[in-house]
């Protein structure tokens, strides 16, 4: 196993399933033999704020937090929340964006504007390493808008040589049985999306 630790930053807004997605990542990479650490960075409980998790895997992981500027993969479930962490990415880092906007309070109150051209900004700095999916519509097609996080994980799985069975098994372990087939499907559709 290579010594290098890989850093994955996940960001989104409360309710998008950021934490569940990072829990699944933790289980998958642990199962295939890596040391893993995960840390959730969010403010007061779950009150509509932004949610970020730091997920790291490698032979031996020390810090539960990623060093600023050291992110290998940025996964964002929401455009602004992705843009907020653009400086955290390494020069050759990869970004996976779910093309969805959730307006923050300053925008809905009409005092600030939602940033324009988020995807364009990422393409400017990360060209071929910018991957965009329409996670919401894929999730809706699969039967539930809440499966955006699983669709995104499906897309993310393309970056690694880990068997689909391992992903699927760990995915389902974190979800209630009645939504198993929906989420398996969401994962596979996500995998096809990039």
């Amino acid at each position, binding site marked *: 196993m290579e010594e290098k630790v890989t850093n994955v930053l996940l960001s989104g*807004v409360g309710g998008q399933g950021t934490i569940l997605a990072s*829990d699944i990542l*933790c*289980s998958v990479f*642990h199962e295939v033999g890596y*040391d*893993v*650490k*995960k*840390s*959730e960075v969010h*403010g*007061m*409980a779950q*009150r*509509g*704020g*932004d949610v970020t998790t730091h997920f790291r895997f490698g032979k031996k*992981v*020390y*810090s*539960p*937090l*990623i*060093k*600023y*500027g*050291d992110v290998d993969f940025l996964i964002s479930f929401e455009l*602004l929340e992705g*843009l*907020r*962490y*653009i*400086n955290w990415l390494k020069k050759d880092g990869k970004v996976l964006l779910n093309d969805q906007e959730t*307006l*923050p*309070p*300053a*925008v*809905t*109150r*009409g005092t*600030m*504007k*939602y*940033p324009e051209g988020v995807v364009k*900004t990422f393409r400017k*700095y990360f060209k071929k390493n910018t991957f965009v999916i329409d996670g919401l519509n894929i999730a809706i097609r699969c039967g539930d808008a809440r499966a955006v996080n699983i669709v995104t994980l499906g897309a993310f799985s393309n970056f690694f040589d880990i068997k689909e069975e391992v992903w699927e098994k760990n995915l389902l372990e974190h979800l209630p049985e009645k939504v198993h087939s929906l989420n398996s499907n969401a994962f596979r559709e996500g995998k096809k999306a990039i």
Partner: protein
Amino acid sequence: MEKILQGNYAIARGAWEAGLKVACAYPGTPSSEILFAISSQYKNDIQAEWAPNEKVALEVAIGASFTGARSLACMKHVGLNVASDPFMTVAYTGVKGGLVIVVADDPYAHSSQNEQDSRHWARFGKVPMIEPSDSQECKDFTKLSYDLSEQFDTPVLLRTETRISHSFSPVSFDDRRESIIPIGLDLKDAPKYTMVPIYVRMRRVVVEDRMKKLEAFADEFKHNVMEINDPKIGVITSGVSYNYTKEVFPNYSYLKLGMVWPLPKKLIREFFSKVKKVIIVEELDPFLETEIRAMGYKIFHGKDVLPGFYEFSPEIVEKSIKGKGYKPPKERINPEEFPKRPPNLCSGCSHRPLFYALKKLGVFVFGDIGCYTLAAAPPLNAVHSTVCMGAGVGGAFGAMKALGKEGLGKVCSVIGDSTFLHGGIAPLMDIVYNKGNATTLILDNRTTGMTGLQEHPGTGFTISGETTNQIDIETLVRALGVKHVRKIDPYHITKAMEVIKEEIERDEPSVIITVNGPCMLHRREKRKFEHAYYEIDTENCRGCKMCLDIGCPAISWREVGDDEATTKDGHKRKGVVSINRIQCPGCGVCQQICKFEAIVPGKA
């Protein structure tokens, strides 16, 4: 077996494996999950209970320990302030069954009213303190804390920080081993447990002797670990700071302390003899640094370069130690320009109309600890002080004492149901006893909301969901001697304002309790609203933004073009409002505020 566990869950696991019998806590971020994990996973072996506050939690754990049972009390850093009275004296009595007190610090005050460093309690109370650096250590250290507690006849403090309590990493599991100490009370133990002066003086000597023994033990403690790599620089550190430093300076030598009090003086001397220069990396106060300087050593770097406040991170450690040699990554854009997402009261929350009413009345609100601190933020701006649990009630009384009759109609205190039972009863008694005239508003949302919906003595349910005796807040308040007790529906703004105005102007103690306003996230209790949701009649909406004053996350405003620049009846407008149907629970608060009948019930 190995599983990925949150630090708090690993502590619960460690306590269970150690044969824990009785666990008590009052919820507080970042410690709340420990007791929940115990009650949900190990309830057949462990009695887990929410106590009304941390002082009671510790006292219950102490009583259990005196019988020989292994016991646990968990709290956040400020919780130990509340529990400090029994804590300082149980340090003298010692224990029979192992007693571990988990105290979870919150550097950067992610969810706290201050940033205090709990290590001082260990030195102050003369008890050992253990500090894990990941989930595996959370489990292992909790377990060994019980042996330590019994071996040295002392309570043991287990200190975590937010980043340890709330991080996840792999943990290997072992089986539970029951304690070998037989359970029972012995009347002859009285001199050990009765801290009257004659026995205090006896135990005082025992405490001193114990500290000496613990100091010697610290030198042999296998989790005080020396790693000699590059001998030019050695780092003395503990907890999560070790991980941050090891991450950015893997080649330095390390003395990682698993026990941060008392310090292993021999081991520290040895470390100084093996490395050229020593850097001390610790979050918050210069605790290790002060002690090690007092041993007569020169420190190469400590708080001269590392911050003495806020939370650390790998780059803060790297930047501080490298100084001018640190090259920051290139900034692509300035994220400070983007709109933020501050936490907010949920849509439909019963606190929102109540604080809107208080804002309209223009009163100075002595707030408390809980979700209602969110009403301090714009646009509500309706909380004007927050100190600690229960402080609002006493604070409003003190202000009224100072203001005299001038204060009538201008002041009130606001406290939650769980918080009132935690720390609000004694100050309310004070108002009655000392002929005060302050008004206390108890916002009863039927749960401990902010920390994640824990039960409390007023809910009628225990931590495991069993029904139990329920403290009725109105009866309690009347028993304290409050004659004017009013109940209000927080969702009826005008009526609520009338009642509040009457009571704050009254020259006698009064209490107002909100009814039928359960937390929106409550699983058991739900407020039934008249309509499923509300929507905007865009023909009437003048875009005046009045409804935005309540800060509801479901309501948004947008600019309109020329084609929409007037209302149906010809009023000019710059924008219109819309309500997000998915987020709107139909509480109707915005409808009461709109002057132009532009907010109407949605068609079901």
